[in-house]
C-alpha cells in the first residue's frame, strides 16, 4: 500500500525531471547555457514578490479548469469542453457587468453567479446530448468549444465592442475582483479557487454523494445495479464541471483580464485536462500541479526572454512533461514493470 502511494508521487516527479533534462539538452543544442536557462526560470517564477504573485495569478485559471476536469472525470464524464465552459463563464460575467451599467461589489457577485451559471449551461448541453442521444461527449464538447470561441469573437468584434481594437470595454474598477495585497496582482479569485479545491476534495472523499459519484465514474453498470441513478449523476457532473470552469472564467475576467479580446482563454481547457490527469484526478494534487504548470509558464517566459530560445521550446518541454508523467504512471500498470519496480524496492528494503 505504502509503496504504491509512494510510487504514485515518485513516478510523475521523476518523469518531469526527465522531461526537463531533455529540454535542457535542446537548449544546450541551441548553443545556450542550460544552467543559465534554469536560473532565469527560477528567477522568473520566484525571483521577486511580483514574480511570485504572477505565478499565482497564472495558476488561478488552471486550478479552475483542472478541478473542472477532476470533477467530471471522477464521474466518468470525459469533458474536453473546459475551454468552452471557461469562456462561457467569462462571456456571461462581462456581458452582465457591461449590461447592468452600474458599478460596485454587488455587480461583481451577480457577474460571478452569471458566469458560473453560464458555464453550467455550457456543460449541460453536451450532457443532455450524451444522456438523451448517447453522443460521445469528447466530440460534442470540442464542437462546443469552437462555438464558444467564435461566439466570443462575435462579442468582442461586434456586440460588446468598444473602441478601435476588437475587444470589449473593461470591467469598471469597482466591479473588479479585489486584490488581496494592493500592489500584487493576486486577487480573491485564488482564495475562491483554493476553497473550491478543498471543497471538492471533501465532497468526493468525505460525503455520501461524492462517494456515489465516484462509484458511478468507476463502474456505471454496477452503480445502476446498486440503485444509483447513473444518468442523473452524469448530468450533474456535466453541469458542475461546467460551472466550475465557468466560475474560473468569471474570476479570471473580473480579476485579471478585465475584458474579452482575441485569443483570450486559449488552452486553459486542455491544460486543465492534462494537469488533472497528471494529478491522478486528486483535487488537492490538481491544485499543486496547476501551480507547477504556472511556475513552468511564468518561469519559462523569463527563460525565453533571457536566453532568446524560441518560445516553442517551452511548449515542447511542457508536452514532454505531460507525456512522460502520464506514460510513467501507465507503465506502472504493466505487470512486468510493476514487478520489476517492486523488486527494486524489496532489494532496497532488504539491504
Amino acid at each position, binding site marked *: 500500500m505504502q509503496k504504491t502511494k509512494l510510487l504514485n508521487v515518485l513516478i510523475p516527479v521523476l518523469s518531469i525531471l526527465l522531461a526537463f533534462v531533455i529540454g535542457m539538452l535542446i537548449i544546450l543544442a541551441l548553443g545556450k547555457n542550460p544552467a543559465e536557462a534554469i536560473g532565469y526560470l527560477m528567477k522568473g517564477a520566484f525571483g*521577486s514578490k511580483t514574480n511570485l504573485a*504572477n505565478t499565482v495569478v497564472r495558476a488561478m485559471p488552471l486550478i479552475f479548469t483542472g478541478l473542472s476536469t477532476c470533477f467530471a472525470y471522477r464521474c466518468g464524464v470525459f469533458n474536453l469542453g473546459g475551454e468552452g465552459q471557461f469562456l462561457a463563464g467569462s462571456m456571461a460575467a462581462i456581458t452582465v457587468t457591461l449590461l447592468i451599467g452600474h458599478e460596485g461589489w454587488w455587480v461583481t457577485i451577480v457577474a460571478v453567479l452569471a458566469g458560473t451559471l453560464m458555464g453550467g449551461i455550457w456543460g449541460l448541453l453536451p450532457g443532455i446530448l450524451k444522456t438523451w442521444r448517447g453522443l460521445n461527449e469528447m466530440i460534442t464538447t470540442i464542437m462546443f468549444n469552437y462555438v464558444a470561441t467564435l461566439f466570443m469573437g462575435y462579442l468582442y*468584434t461586434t456586440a460588446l465592442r468598444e*473602441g478601435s481594437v476588437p475587444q470589449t470595454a473593461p470591467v469598471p474598477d469597482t466591479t473588479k475582483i479585489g486584490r488581496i495585497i494592493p500592489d500584487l496582482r493576486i486577487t480573491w479569485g485564488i482564495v475562491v479557487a483554493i476553497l473550491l479545491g478543498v471543497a471538492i476534495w471533501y465532497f468526493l472523499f468525505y460525503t455520501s454523494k461524492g462517494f456515489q459519484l465516484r462509484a458511478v465514474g468507476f463502474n456505471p453498470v454496477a452503480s445502476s445495479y446498486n440503485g444509483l441513478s447513473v444518468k442523473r449523476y452524469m448530468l450533474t457532473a456535466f453541469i458542475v464541471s461546467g460551472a466550475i470552469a465557468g466560475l474560473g472564467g468569471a474570476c479570471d475576467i473580473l480579476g485579471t483580464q478585465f475584458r474579452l*479580446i*482575441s*485569443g483570450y482563454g*486559449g488552452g486553459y481547457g486542455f491544460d486543465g485536462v492534462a494537469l488533472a490527469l497528471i494529478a491522478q484526478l486528486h483535487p488537492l494534487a490538481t491544485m499543486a500541479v496547476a501551480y507547477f504548470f504556472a511556475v513552468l509558464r511564468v518561469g519559462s*517566459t523569463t527563460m525565453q526572454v533571457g536566453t*532568446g530560445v524560441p518560445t516553442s521550446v517551452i511548449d515542447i518541454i511542457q508536452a514532454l512533461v505531460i507525456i512522460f508523467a502520464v506514460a510513467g504512471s501507465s507503465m506502472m500498470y504493466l505487470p512486468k514493470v510493476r514487478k520489476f519496480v517492486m523488486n527494486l524496492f524489496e532489494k532496497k528494503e532488504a539491504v
Partner: protein
Amino acid sequence: AKEAAPAAEKTFKVAMICDSSISDGGWGAACYNGMTAAAESRGWETAYTDAIDQSAYADTMISYCDLGYDMIFAPGNQYSDAVVQVAADYPNVAFAVLNGSTELPTANIMSILPNADQIGSIAGIIAGLMSKTNVIGFIGGMELDTTKSKLAHFTSAAQAINPDIKVVSAYAGSFNDTAKGMELAASMINEGADVFFGDASAVDSGARQAIDQANGDNVTIVDIGQPADLLGQNPCVVSSVVTDNAAMIAICLEKVETGTFGNEVVFGSLENGAVYLGKFNDALVDADMQTKVADYIKQLQDGTFGN
C-alpha cells in the same frame, strides 16, 4: 520619464513582443524589421518574443522589464491593456504601442499611429484607376478600427475616381489562416474582383497566392501590398503602401535617449514621410497611370482629393 543617462557608454535595449510570428511575411515581419532598422540606426540592442498567447503578454513584458530593457515595443492596440498594467509597475521603462489609441499615452507610454485613412485612400486610388471589372476586393484580418477605416477610405477613394466601383470585402477572423485567405480571394475573384488590398498579415499571402493561381502566366488580377514594400514577393503585387515603422520607432528611441519620452502620440503620414507609396511593377502599370496615381496622392496630401 527617467532622466537621460549621462554616460554615453550605455547601450540601450529595446524588445518587441508579438502575438503572430515575426516571419509571417506580413505584419509581424514588418514590425520586426521596423524595430531592428530603427535600433540599428541608433545603436540599440534588440530582442523579441513572438507567437505568444494573449495570456502571456504581461508576463513577457515583465520579464523584459526585469532584465533591464529600456523600451518595450508592442505592435498593436491589443497589447494596450497589458502595457498599461505593466507600465504602472515599471515607471522607468518606456512603452511604445503601435496603432495605440490617442488616449493611451502616459508618462511612460507612447502611441505610434500611422494614418490609416491615407493608407486606405492610396490603395483606393490605385484600385479605382486600375480596375477593369469595376469590382475590387478587400480582405481584413480582424475588425480593428484601423482596418475598418482602411476599408472605408479604400472604398471612398476608389469610388471618387470611378463611381461604378463596387467593393467586395470580408474578414478572415484571423491573421494567420493562410488557407482562408486563399478561399476568400478565390471567391472574390469569382465575384469579378480584379484589384485587391488586404490588412490581414499571413492571410494576405494566401490571398496573393490565390490571385497568382487565377492569373496563371498572364497577370490580370493584381494586389496592393502593405505594410512593407512587397514588390517582387508575388507576381501579382502591383505596388505597396509602405508604412515606415522604422522612422516612427526611431523617434521613440531618440526620446528615450534624451529622457523626453511619454505623453505623446507619434503620427505617421504622407506628410512626414512615414507613409508612402512603394515602387510600381512597371510591367503592369504604364508610366501614364503612374503619374496619375502620383497626382492623386498629391491631392490627397493637399486635402483636395475627391472635391
